[in-house]
């Protein structure tokens, strides 16, 4: 089986699961460093922007953006997603997260 075929059968499987359990949802997770945590990456980009002719830039903070495709839609699923946002997708010691549906 070629890689392409494997990939295709994967898609078929996902479709089959979809059909069985109904609609899914797309959630977006934003993870940002907490204000107290130094963001040297953001500072470097801020400086670059100032150098490139925008001295008005006050600050830049760099975080992460994730798109997650999930089967199902119920509230219990959302509670579990929040759980994983806290345990895996963000580290509450240094980051805040926001889950958008």
């Amino acid at each position, binding site marked *: 089986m070629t890689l392409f075929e494997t990939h295709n059968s994967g898609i078929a499987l996902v479709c089959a699961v979809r059909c069985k359990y109904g609609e899914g949802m797309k959630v977006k997770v934003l993870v940002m460093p907490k204000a107290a945590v*130094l963001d040297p*990456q953001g500072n470097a980009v801020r400086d670059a922007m100032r150098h490139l002719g925008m001295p008005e830039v006050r600050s830049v903070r760099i975080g992460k953006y994730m798109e997650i495709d999930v089967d199902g839609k119920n509230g219990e699923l959302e509670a579990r997603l929040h759980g994983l946002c806290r345990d895996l997708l963000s580290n509450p010691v240094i980051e805040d997260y926001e889950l958008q549906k």
Partner: protein
Amino acid sequence: MKFAVIQFPGSNCDQDCLAAINGLDGLRAEYVWHKETSLDDFDAIVLPGGFAYGDYLRCGAIARFSPIMRAVVSDARAGKLVLGTCNGFQVLCEAGLLPGALVRNRSLRFVCDMATMRVEVDDSPFTHGCPKGTLLRFPVAHGEGCFFADAETLRDLNANGQVILRYADSQGRIVPEANPNGSIENIAGICNRERNVFGLMPHPDRASDARLGSVDGAKIFRSMMQGIDASRATTASKHIAKVA
């Protein structure tokens, strides 16, 4: 006395740890693959450096969910000695066994250098043989080793004597120039409140042979050995007292 060196996919200091430990009299180290579930046969646990799971998402974020981590956490709670170097330190923080977190170096550069650390606490099982103020030289090699903790956590760490090592200059002064990564208060290594879990960014495993420029790392492993001996003696005497 048997030490477990945990191998995650992406660990790359596992061999350094094994060689450093096996090079010491009375100590033996064995690899334990991250999919194992028990560490009952071991007296101490070492989480080596590297890039477990490619450091995807955050350093240590995925490794902390490896099957072996359940055993690491439960054994740590039961009092077994756990040492995390470099990536191992990051895994211990992510797993909640140590407070705080390690973030991108302030310089945004990967640092690969020899660092000097001052021993701040000498009554931990990891620094028995190093009186307070001793200077140790270990290599550092990391891009995300800047230790961060919020003000309250930092206060607790200092108040409970959990800061074991700080980056220092050759005179033992805690100065910004000696800080390779921007760690808060020059913190290089911390332990938990119970003092049986120790994490540090520098590599004692790469400083346990004179040919590598420093043998200070061996002091940490030897101290762990003495700590285990001492706790065994206490357990034995308690047992004898109970029997008597």
